[in-house]
């Protein structure tokens, strides 16, 4: 099967810091890949390159067979790449529902004008939170939300469109036990629907529960890329900490 996403030799430098050096891997449609690594290993930088925020210093990207470069987050979205960012990227002065629909609001055509369908968006947002079993009120301003509620908003946002690839940068960091299970469930459902997922997480059990393959990063380089079945939490931990050089 053809690769959905393919990175070859991606390098990213910030001044003196080489956040990524020569990273190559590919993801097939419907595949769930775990991306692990120590803090500062370069995982988020990788995600930001795939979702068009950063341009790589060197190396190339291919998505769905073409597109050597993704120039902006808007372009990534158009290509079918949805992202849950580690810093969530929420507008504090909008409500949860408004944040979820930001950039793809539901509208009603009235003559030449298009007005918002507030009630519909509100209702749909509530549905999404119910689905995630999250205690988040769709009409509340994000500004006054708890950490986990904010994360729920960011996750709910990816559910709106027909994505081909969903990048999740520590989506379960702040949410509670019950919703973690729901997010893992969600990933299973996405996989069944043929949607590829790259899951970044520091929680070993979660990665081993849903991923088929795990990629381990260490100080900007890829040190392992193997099927979950052929690895073990101990091995991955050793790879992350550098106790084991590569696998």
């Amino acid at each position, binding site marked *: 099967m053809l690769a959905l996403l393919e990175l070859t030799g991606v390098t990213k430098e910030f001044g003196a810091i080489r956040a990524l050096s020569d990273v190559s891997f590919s993801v097939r449609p419907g595949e769930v890949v775990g991306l692990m690594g120590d803090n500062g290993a370069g995982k988020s930088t990788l995600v930001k390159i795939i*979702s068009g*925020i950063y341009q790589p210093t060197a190396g190339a990207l291919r998505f769905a067979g073409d597109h050597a470069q993704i120039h*902006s*987050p*808007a372009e990534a*979205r*158009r290509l079918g790449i949805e*992202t849950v*960012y580690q810093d*969530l*990227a*929420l*507008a*504090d*002065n*909008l*409500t949860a529902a*408004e*944040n979820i629909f*930001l*950039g*793809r*609001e539901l*509208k009603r055509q009235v003559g030449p*004008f*298009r*007005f*918002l369908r*507030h009630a519909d968006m*509100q209702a749909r947002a*509530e549905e999404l939170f119910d689905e995630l079993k999250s*205690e988040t*009120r*769709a*009409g*509340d*301003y994000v500004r006054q939300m708890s950490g986990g509620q904010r994360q729920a908003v960011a996750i709910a*946002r990816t559910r709106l469109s027909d994505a081909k690839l969903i990048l999740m940068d520590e989506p379960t960091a702040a949410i509670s036990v019950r919703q973690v299970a729901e997010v893992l469930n969600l990933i299973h459902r996405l996989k069944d629907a043929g949607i590829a997922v790259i899951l970044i997480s520091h929680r070993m059990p979660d990665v081993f529960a849903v991923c088929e393959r795990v990629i381990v990063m260490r100080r900007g380089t890829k040190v392992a890329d193997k099927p979950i079945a052929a690895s073990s939490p101990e091995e991955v931990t050793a790879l992350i900490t550098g106790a084991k050089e590569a696998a």
Partner: protein
Amino acid sequence: MSQVHTSSFTNVGRTRFWQRGFLASQSAYVLAALVVLIVVMSLLSPNFMTGGNISNITRNFSFIAIATLGITLVIITGGIDLSVGSTIALSATITSLTMNALNTAQFYPFPGSALAVALVAGLLAAAAVGLFNGLAIAKLKLSPFVTTLGTLSMVRGLVYVTTQGRGTFPAGPDKELFLAVTAGKLFDVVPVSFLYLVICAAVMWVALNHTAWGKHVFAIGSNENAGRLTGVNVDRVKIQVYVLCSVAAGINGIIISGWLGSAPANLATAYELTIIAAAVIGGANLAGGVGGAAGAIIGCVLIEVIRNGLVLARVDPYWQQTLVGAIIVAAVLVDRLRSSRNG
């Protein structure tokens, strides 16, 4: 819009009516302060509440209110536009120069044509300023303060250059029409400029609250990055907002020059601070993400009522400026009431 879905949350009570929407906003509290001020002023001066004076006040605040609406948009996106005063002068000057030029060129295919061309020219000139600001700020990522400080100076300079510092006067066959559509009164009572203001404010309210564009404006002001990441075309919205702001200033410039019958080169010098003050007093937050049409108007009314009231109350002119400053601070002070009540 933010109806709370309370059914399933045991720890969420009902939001009381004064805790939400307009009544919980700074604008409402400043409106209350305004009402108090009006009462005080009418007690201090018997002439304050006369028809003529109310009509004067209405006209005077309409002069800056449309520009205040525009700058409120800019402020909501977290920007600022210091060039509005100069833009007011520019559009007034260009409109007036165009009328003169058409008159000299004897261009007058049908009644109103000279005026139409002149108005379009004036507003296009204003829009060009906005476009420059918007491009520099959105595309080149320059600081809005410095960029618009630069245009403040550039545009004013251009006004001086084009008129050699003299200012101009509207002239030509459409002059009467020009005066009627800018300085006229509806049914001999309501200044037309007030009508324009109401229309602009209504459109802005709908755009901010009921269109995707409005949500994008708020999103940019509260977290520009989040907007960008969720696919909002941040640059385009920013450019639009700066263009709208300049056009609003342009409309005001045309109205003022129509009423004056003149477009002096120093028209609206230093108005930018008053206009920004009006927007901020009305509840727009310079940090971005907060503001509205109603507030902008309330801010303008407040400033004009202070100015007019002090003159009518025959306050020593040397003291007036001091009092205006003090009352502006006092007006925003009432907002603290709100914050401490609504937690």
